[in-house]
């Protein structure tokens, strides 16, 4: 009973439960859902799809988590996704030999350098010039989409290079490379923030920027760093998305991914006002969103009602996450149960 209570009180319990429930629902609707088989020399199955198509969102959401932890927000990630994919595909398409490994790495390098630069621009606006994050990153969100369209000339750039294609569509030891990249990003960033003081400092800045500055935390530099990291994550996600379809679409790549990423962060239990954050929660949130899409396809929910279905599920997840809601609900159903004093988790829709 004690371990059960502790499990339920864990702040990742409710999002994880929702994810499991959703997966089980799919299993009931389509018994082959959990089947993972080998096909064409690689893993093949719905679960693999969820991970593979969810990988870019996981990356973007990881970057977003740190930005939100400092009390900021980055709306420009979708545009960075588009720009990164566009630049890389343009570069590869201009190569004499699209299959050259050196040329492909060059394209990846340029795209990542540009993403870092764009992240640094956001960070500069927010941390040095003191522009509100939502306004500062809105500039790049709007202008960046135009920039991506300029790079692609409004067309879809199609490429044939096999190395570039491997980033989002390739396999290493039968496992999709995109899943491994997302896993590596999660592992490295988790180690970086939790095995050093970095995570604590970021939470301190998010909790109370003025107090942490007075305590000697270099909050300005720290905030700047989170935007650069967010840009990097979005850039890699952009490479993945464009590589997965071997083409760059300046108009549609990464469109609205910023909203999905923010949602993933919120479902994962990180507060939009800054402070405590959880990479693990973010990954669960991102997987939940991707599973939701797959559920829509598996159950054959008509496109006209898809958005409503998603909204209802997300609302349900957010409600059960809210301690106030659970307390009210529990009181109504079982009056005798003592009210558990929960840590305060605010849910923002």
């Amino acid at each position, binding site marked *: 009973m004690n371990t059960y209570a502790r499990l339920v009180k864990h702040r990742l319990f409710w999002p994880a439960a929702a994810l499991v429930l959703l997966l089980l629902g799919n299993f009931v609707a*389509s018994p*082959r*859902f959990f089947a993972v088989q080998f*096909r*064409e020399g690689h893993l*093949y*199955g*719905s679960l693999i*799809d969820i991970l593979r*198509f969810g990988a870019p969102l996981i990356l973007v959401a990881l970057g977003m988590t740190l930005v939100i932890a400092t009390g900021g927000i980055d709306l420009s990630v979708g545009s960075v996704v588009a720009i990164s994919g566009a630049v890389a595909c343009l570069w590869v398409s201009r190569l004499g030999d699209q299959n050259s490994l050196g040329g492909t790495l060059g394209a990846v390098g340029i795209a990542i350098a540009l993403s870092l630069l764009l992240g640094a621009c956001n960070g500069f606006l927010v941390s040095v010039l003191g522009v509100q994050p939502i306004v500062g990153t809105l*500039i790049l969100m*709007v*202008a960046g*989409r*135009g*920039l991506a*369209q*300029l790079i692609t*000339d*409004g*067309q*879809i750039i*199609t490429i044939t290079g096999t190395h570039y294609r491997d980033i989002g*569509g390739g396999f290493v030891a039968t496992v999709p490379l995109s899943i491994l990249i997302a896993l590596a990003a999660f592992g490295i960033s988790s180690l970086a923030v939790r095995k050093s003081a970095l995570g604590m400092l970021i939470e301190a800045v998010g909790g109370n920027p003025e107090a942490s500055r007075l305590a000697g935390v270099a909050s300005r530099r720290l905030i700047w760093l989170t935007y650069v990291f967010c840009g990097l994550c979005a850039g890699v996600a952009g490479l993945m*998305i464009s590589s*997965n*379809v*071997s*083409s760059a*679409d300046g*108009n*549609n*790549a990464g469109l609205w991914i910023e909203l999905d990423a923010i949602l993933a962060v919120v479902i994962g239990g990180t507060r939009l006002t800054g402070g405590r954050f959880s990479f693990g929660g973010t990954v669960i949130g991102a997987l939940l969103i991707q599973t939701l*899409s*797959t559920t*829509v*396809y*598996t159950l*054959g929910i*008509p*496109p*006209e009602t*898809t958005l409503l279905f998603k909204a209802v599920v997300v609302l349900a997840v957010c409600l059960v996450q809210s301690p106030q809601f659970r307390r009210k609900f529990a009181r109504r159903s079982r009056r005798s149960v003592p009210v558990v004093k929960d840590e305060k988790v605010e849910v923002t829709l």
Partner: protein
Amino acid sequence: MLNRKWAAGVVVGVGALLLSACGSSSGSGSGSGSGGGAISLGFAQVGAESGWRTANTKSIQDSAKSAGIELKFSDAQQKQENQIKAIRSYIQQKVKVIAFSPVVESGWDTVLKEAKTANIPVVLTDRAIDSPDKTLYKTFLGSDFVKEGQKAGQWLTKEYASAPGDVNIVELQGTTGSAPANDRKKGFGDVIAADPKFKIVASQTGDFTRAKGKEVMEAFLKSQSKIDVLYAHNDDMALGAIEAIEGAGKVPGKDIKIVSVDGVHDALQALVDGKINHVVECNPLLGPQLMDLVKKVSAGQDVPARIETTETEFDQAAAKTALPQRQY
């Protein structure tokens, strides 16, 4: 002079969104002031959302130049209010004819009445509007999306005329609620309904993009035990789905036959390679037809209320001949 300043103000007002459009509007603005005698045409484009649209814009700009028509061009970035602003500015500038591709179907009555009061004829291109007052515009020039869906359905019924068993079809729809998605679905559905062996076993939106087309097709391949045919509302979704089909160890064009709509360069290439079986054209190059209409309308001649763009269909042989000149 004041007018041009004001127009420049509108362009700035519409804002940073127009980065891509600025390139095009500066090109058309160079038609030196109010050209004496030349017909002036104000064109309010939807945006630059796809390769198809870019080809559409380029066709209009090029044919205006060669027809000697002074083109004032604006890009609405998919927003109705931007298009209304652009149309109002054309009315102020007293252009001879206004043409536009409406972002959405309704909400145009007020601004079109203003144009009517100013005696400026309006031509709709590519997309229609939904208004009880048919006098608000002179004519509509564009594709018949229902017919495109019917053509795809007719190809399918012919292809499977002698097939004995059920034919399982999966459908990738366009953006939910958009006119091309609604009409292509309807046209196709009407034709195949004649024979009960044709079954649409799954139908989802792929938002007209390659990435979504691939993602949805991956899910179809897992949830459906047998898929014979893929019908995609545009080429890009079909191209994305091809990658998913190949990833599942099946051969696109053989194991799963594919029919799609549009006729962009990459799709014709896939058709030549045998990965797509049939493409129904949706022609964006309506510039020459539009300029013709503009001349007639400004001369006060009568024009039909609805004019369809000339469109064809591609099989493998036709694709081979068309591919080298395909600009988009």
